[in-house]
């Protein structure tokens, strides 16, 4: 029977016993659990990566303005600025991640990975990684399978949805998927790949979901960029052999625990945090439909 992606420990054990590359049991899982052929899986993973690449390109070339006015071609501004705060690669990473996410906010086509709110993170990370290290598409497709395996485990033990676990569950999970994918692509060991996931979760823990006016724009877009940056810093730390101290499965447990204890106003309800600031409220008033018929309360039986 295929590995069921209950935790990272059993994935690592599977690797030690079989020596299979990390993506292999993910492939096997989908074949056995979902009745798919291997050809179908590679084809659709390739399609997903094509859509990601296309989203990056669209975000950097087309007009990206949202109806609320909160999104206004941020990715293109970053790409065009003459000021480079760290390195040209870093600037590109940020611009690409913002771009793909802006496409999502502006009703363009994206891949929810793992969710629509986090749809800029893997595109930004993977296209930049591929560029810098001259990786072929096959490597990136394998890395996407590894990322899917990571997400399956997080979903099983914590959550991937902002409405359930806060933004740490959404952008945090995407960053963790990306960090593991980076280490995989660069030939790090399996423990190093999982340590990158652990370190990323440690960095993203506690982040609340507080979208202004309930729209997936502010702070979602800039958080995609910071999540991509954190994925790279975590991968850099892990691939150097630094020990995260708290094992990855326990980090996932912490993610679940923090998510559970978070108050509802920090779970996509637009009641707390940035959504509840005076400016956030003013924007909300502007964006929400005002012409609405309110039905009388029905007496409870």
């Amino acid at each position: 029977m295929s590995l069921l992606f209950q935790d990272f420990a059993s994935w690592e054990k599977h690797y030690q016993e079989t020596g299979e590359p990390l993506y292999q049991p993910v492939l096997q899982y989908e074949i056995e659990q979902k009745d798919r052929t291997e050809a179908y899986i590679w084809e659709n993973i390739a399609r997903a990566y094509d859509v990601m690449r296309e989203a990056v390109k669209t975000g950097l070339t087309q007009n990206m303005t949202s109806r609320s006015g909160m999104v206004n071609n941020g990715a293109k501004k970053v790409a065009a600025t003459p000021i480079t705060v760290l390195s040209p690669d870093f600037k590109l990473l940020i611009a690409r991640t913002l771009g793909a996410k802006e496409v999502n906010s502006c009703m363009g086509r994206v891949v929810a990975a793992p969710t629509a709110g986090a749809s800029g993170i893997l595109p930004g990370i993977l296209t930049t990684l591929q560029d810098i290290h001259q990786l072929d598409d096959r490597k990136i497709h394998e890395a996407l399978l590894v990322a899917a395996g990571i997400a399956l485990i997080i979903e099983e033990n914590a959550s991937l949805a902002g409405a359930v676990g806060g933004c740490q569950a959404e952008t945090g999970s995407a960053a963790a998927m990306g960090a593991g994918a980076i280490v995989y692509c660069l030939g790090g060991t399996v423990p190093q790949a999982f340590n990158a996931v652990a370190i990323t979760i440690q960095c993203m823990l506690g982040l609340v979901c507080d979208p202004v006016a309930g729209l997936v724009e502010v702070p979602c877009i800039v958080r995609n960029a910071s999540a991509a940056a954190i994925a790279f810093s975590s991968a850099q730390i892990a691939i150097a052999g630094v020990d995260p101290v708290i094992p990855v499965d326990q980090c996932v447990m912490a993610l679940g625990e923090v998510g559970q204890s978070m108050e509802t106003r920090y779970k996509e309800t637009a009641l707390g945090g940035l959504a509840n600031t005076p400016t956030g409220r003013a924007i909300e008033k502007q964006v929400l439909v005002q012409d609405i018929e309110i039905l009388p309360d029905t007496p409870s039986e």
Partner: protein
Amino acid sequence: MAEKSSIFDMIGPVMIGPSSSHTAGVVRIARAAIRVLGCQPETAEITFYNSFARTYEGHGSDRAVIAGLLDFKTDDIRIKESFRYAAEAGLQYSFKSVGNASAMHPNTLKLNLSGPNGQVEVVGQSRGGGVIRIVEVDGFPSDFSANLHTLMIEADDVKGSIAFIADVIAHDDCNIATMTVSRRGKNQLARQFIEMDTALKPLTLEYIRHLSWIKNITYIPNIE
């Protein structure tokens, strides 16, 4: 235990933003509704309820619903420009918002459609991740996801009709996933909504259509 997710729920779906419940789900409800109507609608009155009532514009659900009425799929990049395509297709539409509808799911919309074949009223819920539920058709309670194949039957309320239909479907090797039966009163017109795991053969459909006590049937294959 909940069913395990697919890796394409982790890397996917490919969709039009911003959110699966406000775009993909809404597109699918509209695509289901035009199949219930059985033709391209000429006019559409769309009512957004509860949470949808205030947020539909900001999230682009108005464009999503019109796109669905034009039968665009959930990953069609034309969704954003659907109003322009509706004008070209001559589709007339209007939107309305109703709040505090306490008996309804937070993300509910109602579609009143009319076209050359007649008119229908369809109520659907967008339940997250693009998953939908059609909960009412012409005032009759229903319960189908449009993820499977659905058979809608309008018939006289004759004894044994439910068992008979179930039997016919079983003979076509179809597994029934859900079934909702409702009627206005005893011996009045009844509606059956039957969701099946696999497609029905055209021959079986024709047989059912020609039974004397059947008034009308509509077959809705699974909607992407």
